[in-house]
């Protein structure tokens, strides 16, 4: 499709839908309501929205949908660290049920016992998966849950009266950026540990970093390069000995369901990205949800309300004087929780464990064959003797050196094969020309083999016809952007159609 912008499809007077109007008796009784709006607040000009018939609205967004690659319809091994699972269709049907979709959050507890039960049951599940004591499902996403952790750490030290002293949070460079950014937002200084020569978090660096100023450590394990840190409990011990708290970023816990938990490693808190590990859709970047879990001693700081049961019925507990307050209006992305609960109930204990097993088997099959078959491809810390778990950070360094084709070009090229762009790496790129793949349990052997075949083909192209790859994509929904610098140039960026109209001449100046 060569799809126009919706404003280009607009014709004055056309309607897409009509809204229900009040009847004449209401109008008569109400009188001229517009006149009651003070002049300064009355809209003088029709808002400039597009005017499009219903068919054309549907057509337009259907075309845009077809120009988007969801994981349910592609071989989406690409988005490493994101756990692009199959998102079961039945769960979408369940959240369309009006017994859920038409619940108002201020309804009385008596009328929402069903959704409270699902919240409570899913909290029990994440508590069991983490081994921790208490959970909240309020955060709107994974990073939001980590921010919640940072808020709780702050409240903890504030209540202890030590916040002025405990103002540092330690993280590791291969932990997700939010493990640095959210503590910073919450007012902490951030200390970032570099890896040791094996690519694992450096325990010596930690020992140097901890002090009486340490408020907490925020770390992932495995980090996003796929190595399990066998000394993770030692990290926890060291921080605990320094008096700090330990937060375990388990955004993606897929490969460790029923295999390893926060509890055994000693963490005080952890979180899960419900939209990764628990099979709920990513929505093109949300709505997701973060499940935050903690030990009993931190439970009093959780955002209000918590979901409780009084032996007879479920209720929302707002009476929590030590609470940090709220991180989001109401109770979290309830639809995500309904789906996640249904996903777990479709899998059971055996299914969760199978998820973990197949995720690591798939990944091992993929990376061992990839590096064997694809010229110019290797992976980070290849010689450390450690078997990768659920994902691998690869490097195209050799191919780039040989051909001048870099990972961004290959990433663009892969879309020409009907495959989503792969994830390179979070910033900074410690690993040169990175690529991160995560073939979770939803992918078949054919998918893995196809992926290997495509990358092999692109590598061959890079050696034989580097310009082909550099100028990619050729068959995707759009061609290569003319000049990425425009997007960083205040004179030539345009975030809205109205801004574009004003800047058009500058944008098309050359």
């Amino acid at each position, binding site marked *: 499709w060569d799809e126009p*912008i919706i404003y280009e499809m607009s014709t004055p007077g056309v309607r897409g839908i009509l809204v229900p109007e009040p009847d004449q008796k209401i109008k008569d009784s109400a009188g001229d309501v517009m006149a009651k*709006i003070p002049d300064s607040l009355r809209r003088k000009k029709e808002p400039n929205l597009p005017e499009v018939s219903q068919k054309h609205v549907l057509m337009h967004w259907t075309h845009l949908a077809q120009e*988007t690659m969801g994981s349910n319809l592609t071989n989406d091994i690409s988005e490493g660290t994101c756990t692009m699972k199959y998102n079961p269709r039945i769960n979408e049907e369940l959240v369309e049920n009006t017994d859920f979709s038409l619940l108002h959050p201020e309804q009385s507890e008596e009328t929402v016992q069903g959704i409270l039960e699902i919240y409570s049951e899913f909290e029990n599940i994440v508590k069991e998966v983490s081994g921790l004591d208490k959970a909240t499902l309020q955060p709107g996403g994974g990073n939001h849950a980590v921010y919640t952790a940072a808020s709780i750490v702050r409240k903890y030290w504030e209540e202890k009266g030590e916040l002025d002293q405990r103002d540092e949070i330690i993280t590791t460079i291969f932990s997700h950026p939010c493990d640095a950014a959210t503590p910073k937002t919450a007012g902490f200084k951030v200390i970032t540990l570099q890896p040791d020569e094996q690519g694992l978090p450096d325990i010596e660096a930690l020992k140097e970093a901890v002090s009486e100023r340490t408020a907490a450590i925020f770390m992932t394990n495995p980090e996003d390069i796929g190595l399990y840190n066998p000394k993770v409990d030692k990290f926890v011990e060291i921080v605990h000995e320094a008096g700090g708290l330990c937060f375990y970023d388990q955004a993606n816990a897929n490969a460790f369901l029923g295999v390893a938990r926060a509890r055994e490693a000693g963490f005080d808190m952890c979180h899960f990205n419900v939209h990764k590990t628990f099979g709920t*859709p990513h929505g093109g970047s949300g709505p997701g949800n973060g499940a935050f879990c903690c030990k009993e001693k931190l439970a009093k700081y959780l955002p209000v309300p918590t979901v409780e049961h009084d032996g007879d019925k479920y209720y929302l507990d707002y009476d929590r004087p030590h609470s940090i307050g709220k991180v989001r209006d109401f109770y979290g992305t309830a639809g995500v929780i309904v789906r996640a609960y249904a996903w777990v109930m479709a899998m059971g204990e055996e299914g969760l464990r199978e998820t973990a097993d197949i995720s690591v088997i*798939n990944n091992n099959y993929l990376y061992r064959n990839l590096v064997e078959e694809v010229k110019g491809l290797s992976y980070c810390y290849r010689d450390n003797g450690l078997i990768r778990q659920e994902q691998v950070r690869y490097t195209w360094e050799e191919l780039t050196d040989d051909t001048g084709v870099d990972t961004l070009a290959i990433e663009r090229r892969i*879309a020409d094969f009907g495959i989503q762009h792969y994830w390179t790496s979070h910033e900074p790129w410690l690993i040169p020309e990175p690529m991160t793949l995560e073939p979770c349990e939803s992918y078949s052997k054919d998918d893995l083999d196809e992926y290997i075949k495509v990358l092999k083909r692109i590598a061959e192209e890079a050696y034989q016809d580097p310009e082909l790859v550099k100028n990619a994509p050729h068959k995707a929904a*759009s061609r290569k952007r003319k000049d990425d610098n425009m997007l960083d140039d205040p004179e030539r960026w345009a975030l809205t159609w109205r801004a574009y109209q004003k800047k058009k001449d500058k944008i098309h100046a050359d």
Partner: protein
Amino acid sequence: MIIVKDDNIKGEEKKLAKRAFPYIPNSVEEIKAELLEDIGLSDVEDIFKEIPDHLRFDGKLNIPEPKLSEYELKKHVERILSKNESAQNNLNFKGGGVWQHYVPSVCRTIAGRDEFLTAYVGDAYADHGKFQALFETASMIGELVELDAVNTPTYDWSNAIVRSIRMASRINGRKEVLIPASMSPSRKKVVLNYCKPDIKVTEVDFDQDTALINLDDLQAKLSDQVSSVYIENPNYLGYLEISAQKIGELTHQHGAEFIVGVDPSSLGVLEAPANYGADMVCGELQPFGLNMKWGGALSGFIASPDEEKYVGEYPSLLFGITPTVEEGEYGFGHVAFERTSYAQREKGKDFIGTSTALYGIVAGVYLALVGPKGLIELGEGIMQRCEYAKKKFAEIEGVSVPIKTPSFKEFVVDFSGCNKSVKEINQLLEEENIFGGIDLGEKMEEYENCALFCFTEVHDRYDINKLINSIEMIIEKY
């Protein structure tokens, strides 16, 4: 493989009892073995051996027995959900941050398509459509508020507020924000936490009789320390902040940023905030094509002038339009990505992450469906219903509509003059299949015995009359 306990299955048929998981293609034993063999391993434990024994969970997760067939799963979840009572079978008059509007079928269709639903962070070539869709939503919101820069959606309105406040603080380096004491108590909690530790939050009083910000108190609290002033229009109680323009002027006199929060469904009839002085506008997209979902379908937006000083401070992703190498083709990409915590970790602007893109896409579909004229009709029709309802309420003995300020969609009803508490009335209304107004006494001490009622286009005259009649009956008969 699922091992089914079935004593009847014997011999050859026993094979049937082992089943692959429908969501895990490689859970067939033979495939698993083939994969392992290919890479020279004999067991998954050859991989997990990297985890020391003492860190392993030894046991089975104690979670409920699964419902392996989709049919049983569906029945199971439906059974739990049926313990709820919803607005499908009850008349709902609650608002207060989540409002019952009609969701057009086309919105549901687009939201349900697997392409948008299951996409994620793909770039603009493979996910061209997602970028364009979010750019279009931003474009339409920009028109509603009349500002040129709009972010990709945040978690909700409350997070949009506080991100705006923090943006303002980074812009002018000041560390105090004034917020109205009348704002949503729940959103206020989010703001109070998120402003910590560095931004001081000062509440400006409001006049209980008008529900409006007390301008004297505002002036008293305004100073050159104040980074920004935040107001809501209409406010939490539904009333129009009629001095908004004045508040903006006062704010600007002190060199502070004027931030306006809106329920954007009012913007067919209410002025675009930029036109009465707002520097930044934030608000909630839930009214635009999203069902209430127990408050789970929230999505916030922020808009600002298209100036580097603002755009450079957004924490969110920003999607911009840009040409491609193909003449005449639109391309899309991330604007000023280096701002973000994805690019700079703790040196980025606050933090970002998965938020509510799909809801943002739906909001765009909604706005294109209703169009400018539909949005005006929506707004006017809501105000007409409210006026009608106010008159009807005022006719009930013991009930009054004390605040005369013009309002949109919601207003306060006072039950002090009757013999029952709001809680009791609401309980009795539930028996009539009515969800009554929000009990304000629980939230704001100023409005003991008052309730906040919400009327939208889903209510017709019979619905309103049923509500009024039921309240009359409850007050008079019980």
